């Protein structure tokens, strides 16, 4: 997998930021649209199972955490 670091504009907040990050990682990892959709579900499922990120108190994920999650997600496909 070739997930390179990418800077996301943090001017965009909240939901849009989260969706843009998922989309950006999906592009970096060459995920097809259905796989990208499943990845968004996977991330939400991880949070629901208590595997939270450290970005904020809602358990959202940092870019680096999302990269690791993408690797785990794709490796188990």
């Amino acid at each position, binding site marked *: 997998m070739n997930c390179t670091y990418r800077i996301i504009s943090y001017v965009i907040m909240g939901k849009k930021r989260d969706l843009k990050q998922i989309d950006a990682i999906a592009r970096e990892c060459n995920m097809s649209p*259905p796989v990208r959709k499943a990845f968004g579900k*996977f991330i939400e499922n991880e949070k629901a199972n208590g595997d939270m990120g450290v970005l904020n108190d809602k358990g959202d994920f940092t870019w680096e955490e999302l990269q690791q999650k993408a690797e785990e997600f794709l490796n188990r496909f």
Partner: protein
Amino acid sequence: MVITSVISTKQVIQPSIEKIIPCIIQPMIGEICHQVSFSYGDELGLDFGEMSPYDHPKLKHLLKGSWRFGARASPWAVKHHDQTLVVTAEADTDEQTAIAKEIVKQLEHKKLLDMTIEADTLQLTMSFEDSYQLILNPELDDDSGLACWELFMPTEQLLTVGPGYFWSCTSIS
């Protein structure tokens, strides 16, 4: 890969989008909304049609529909008998978001009766049985680059509307 797309000015697309999009999604009319769910970023998702488990081992306990609608980051509202039950916004608090998520669950197990799009505003109205409506109000001046909404279809195609007046229907097989 077959891609149909339109990038155009409002004047050119205006007479067509409100006719073309309903034609593409016509086969979904009459389907039951089996599931209302949310993915990362609080994206609202509605699953219609035949339900099947995800392929991924960690998602096998979750189901997805043969028709999968995603609202992306567009604000949405739910109406019942023309009464507004909830309106969402990007700046909603966690508590407001939690309440909205509960309310929109009322659409589960309801049959989709109609789906219309307004050419000027790109407002999408999904009408369900028992006089429920889900209304998306895309922010046309939004510069996030995110689509207004998307629809995964059983034909292995992805219909995407937005950002702005751009739309595409793409083969994803």
